[in-house]
């Protein structure tokens, strides 16, 4: 697996000709220092509006993220790509790999968010259980079992203590 710690762009190539700089799109090959390259899509707002009109849709169809620019000039496209390449190329990578991300990535983020969201609703013992499970690093999906387990163990100890009262003699050792 290739890990980019610093994105160094060597070249930006427009793969198709631009007929209207204010209404169109262009496929752009972004080439990196080591020769590796990938293609991203750059569009204008007018292109998106036209797409919706022609498709008779009230929204742009969902497919991979793209860069939107005011004008399809090499200078502006380069400027936009440089901005998207910041922070280890996070947004640039999203434009390239956004439609290939495994849904589990989002499900994990959603689960974390649900957990934080659910915490706001917790009170008293529930909140205590949340922190115990969090620090015990119990997986989020298994945490629901902790509370009944706790009461089951507590109930068992009480029942055991009642059935075998001599067990309590152990504590009387400390009274002398």
């Amino acid at each position, binding site marked *: 697996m290739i890990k980019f710690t610093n994105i160094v762009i060597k070249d930006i190539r427009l*793969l*198709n*000709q631009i007929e209207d700089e204010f209404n169109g799109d262009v496929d752009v090959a972004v080439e990196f220092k080591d020769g590796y390259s990938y*293609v991203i899509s750059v569009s204008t707002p007018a292109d998106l509006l036209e797409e919706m009109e022609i498709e008779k849709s009230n929204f742009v169809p969902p497919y991979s993220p793209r860069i939107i620019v005011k004008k399809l000039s090499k200078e502006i496209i380069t400027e936009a790509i440089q901005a998207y390449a910041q922070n280890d190329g996070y947004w640039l990578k999203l434009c390239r790999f956004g439609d290939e991300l495994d849904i589990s990535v989002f499900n994990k983020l959603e689960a974390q968010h649900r957990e934080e969201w659910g915490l706001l609703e917790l009170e008293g013992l529930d909140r205590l259980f949340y922190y115990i499970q969090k620090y015990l690093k119990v997986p989020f999906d298994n945490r629901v079992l902790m509370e009944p387990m706790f009461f089951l163990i507590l109930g068992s100890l009480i029942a055991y203590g009642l059935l075998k009262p001599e067990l309590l003699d152990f504590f009387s050792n400390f009274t002398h």
Partner: protein
Amino acid sequence: MLESIDSGARITQENLEGFNTLKRYKKGNIRIIVVRSKENEPEKIIAIIPRKDLDDLLKVFKKKYD
């Protein structure tokens, strides 16, 4: 994709940079590469590919098409 072509949905087309004979049709993430029509011959589809493979394919086509 073919259904949307049949229904007359939007398929944009542009000339490919560095080629005189090739142009690109686009629909979402799909790119269709065609050889321009000459004389009475119709356009000829030579590739239907996802956008991500476009650059690599064009490098191959550079050796084959004008």
